[in-house]
């Protein structure tokens, strides 16, 4: 009983991490670009949602696609205006650049919205618990799992069955041959970045109620994002999903069953996976063209 509830809570957390991290995995895998500012996009989605609900009285469910759209558009602007000049530079430059962007995002949000936590009010029908076949589960977590499953199916369908998805896969697998075959890398990069960024914004909007929203959001979750992407493998959707779910479940279960470990289990788990398979669970071995 308790185990199933704990497992479910972990899955909900895992889906949330997946939605936030999947964009990062694809951009890191495809554009070989270390974009740590991805977490700032999550935060942006959260603030879009809160502003839409507070200032414009938009209902919660409608703010979710709005967060996706606005963050997606912002990501395109960010990519075209700043990031594309740094494709192909070394990792350190990209890390420093994107960390700088994170700092800028924190100060900007703090300037416009204030440094304190934003009250996030979700609709009443999403609060509280509900009994599902003998288990008492939180409604918001059921919602998260539901959204997570739908998004996962949409993303997998999009990647596997659409033309655009095929182009993205080609660019991830082998950028040189892909561009040699006539694919417009610039457009594909920008569109992928938009979708990845939009998903980050959506994830941020979904997480605001569960995890709290303030300008320091990026630093709190940067490590989790990187862990999910590293453990899952860059550029793989399924890998990111498995890693996110595993980390979510491991985090919640170990906090319940081994609280003395102090939440360190996921870090030990990450180190173990990195030592065993440095490219991540489903990542490609380094040295691939």
């Amino acid at each position, binding site marked *: 009983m308790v185990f199933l509830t704990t497992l479910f809570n972990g899955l909900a957390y895992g889906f949330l991490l997946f939605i936030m991290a999947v964009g990062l995995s694809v951009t890191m895998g495809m554009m070989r670009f270390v974009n740590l500012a991805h977490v700032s996009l999550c935060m942006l989605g959260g603030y879009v949602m809160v502003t839409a609900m507070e200032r414009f009285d938009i209902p919660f469910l409608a703010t979710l696609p709005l967060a996706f759209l606005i963050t997606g558009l912002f990501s395109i602007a960010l990519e075209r205006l700043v990031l594309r000049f740094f494709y192909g530079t070394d990792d350190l430059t990209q890390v420093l650049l994107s960390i700088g962007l994170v700092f800028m995002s924190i100060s900007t949000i703090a300037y416009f919205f204030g440094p304190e936590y934003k009250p996030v009010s979700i609709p009443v029908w999403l609060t509280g*618990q509900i009994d599902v076949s003998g288990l008492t589960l*939180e409604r918001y977590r059921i919602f998260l799992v539901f959204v997570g499953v739908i998004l996962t199916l949409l993303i997998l369908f999009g990647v596997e069955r659409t033309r655009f998805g095929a182009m993205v896969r080609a660019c991830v697998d082998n950028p040189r041959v892909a561009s040699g075959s006539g694919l417009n890398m610039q457009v594909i990069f920008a569109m992928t970045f938009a979708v990845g960024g939009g998903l980050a914004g959506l994830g941020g909007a979904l997480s605001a109620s569960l995890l709290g929203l303030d300008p320091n959001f990026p630093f709190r979750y940067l490590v989790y994002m990187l862990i999910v992407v590293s453990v899952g493998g860059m550029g793989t959707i399924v890998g990111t999903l498995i890693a996110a779910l595993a980390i979510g479940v491991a985090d*919640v279960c170990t906090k319940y069953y081994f609280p003395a470990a102090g939440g360190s289990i996921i870090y030990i788990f990450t180190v173990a996976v990195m030592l065993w398979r440095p490219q991540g669970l489903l990542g490609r071995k380094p040295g691939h063209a």
Partner: protein
Amino acid sequence: MKVKMLIKAAVIAISCGLLTPAPVLAQETIKVGMLISYSGISASSGIAADNVLKMFQKKYGSEPGGKKIEFIRRDTTGPNPEVARRMAQELIVREKVQVILGPDFTPNVLAIAPLVTEGKVPAIITGAATRGIVGEKSPYYLRTFFSIPQSVRPMAQWAAKNDIKKVVIVVADYGPGQDAEQTFTKTFTEAGGVITNVIKVPVRNSEFSGYMQKIKDSGAEAAFVFMPIGELSLGFLKAYADAGLKNTKLKLLSTGDVTDESTLDAAGDAALGVISVGHYSPTHTAATNQAFVKSYLAEFDKTPRLGIAQVIMWDALQVLYAGLEAQRGQKFDPDKFIASVKGKQFDSPRGPISLDKTTGDIIQNAYIRKVERIGGVLQNVEFDTIKDVPAQ
């Protein structure tokens, strides 16, 4: 050759002339360093301090003891002892401040203790709650903040008095958290109560469902919670409500940090009904407070909310002005400053406070409060008072 040497000598001579100190002016300017967080997780305390300083000087003027006063700000950026140490060094050695308001956070307090002792700079701690860091770490430390035992012990005594026999303790796993757990356990078990278990939550934590399940499993009548002000408190309250624990018979007892006004609005309904022990609520009914709240709200924005952060800085300024007033007409003497304020009583918006005669630590009332919605705004409403609780 000779011309070059002459020019060199002339330059040196002129520089020496310029460096000779001007004759000492009759009026001394007292330089006060504000060593608190203006950025980072505690950025709102910086805004609170600036507001209070403006308000204080409007009321009490800017020439305490007949001397001009100059405030110099330095940002500790949070619990960062290296930064705090560097800033303190700048303030003491370069800016030559005579008094420091701050620092905040225990690691910073410990890091700069040797500096304030060597530099003989009275420092009024505004943001660290660990016990035994005031007089013990430096004879120049005072405190207008509160200490962990000062809040926790009254809560344990109140619980025992109110027929609560079994308590599960939930604390953040770091110094003050462990201190809170030990103090509560000692006081509560001495009064005949039983601690069912202790749950320690990492300081960096976003997911609480495992811990909530453990609280459900404990079979206690009440949960005593200590979390630092900010994300951990907010996360805990939300998770507690989400897990349905508010619908059980379990009473939630906490320190004022969990229901601090800075995160109270973000917690929303999750905070309703939480019983906490704190030292200041804007709803405190004494006349001094009502006047204080009225003038604060008339002048400043609604955020950051008025809470204990502002009152702590207000009282630090009261201590500063009192110490300077006692030295009217004399040159500033740090030892005399300390001696004049130790043992002194002050009328604070939170109630009467005083500084301990030996340690300089604060003695203040503790209030048991419940979170209620007053006029649409969540407030901690006081319903019981424990007078003059020492900081040890």
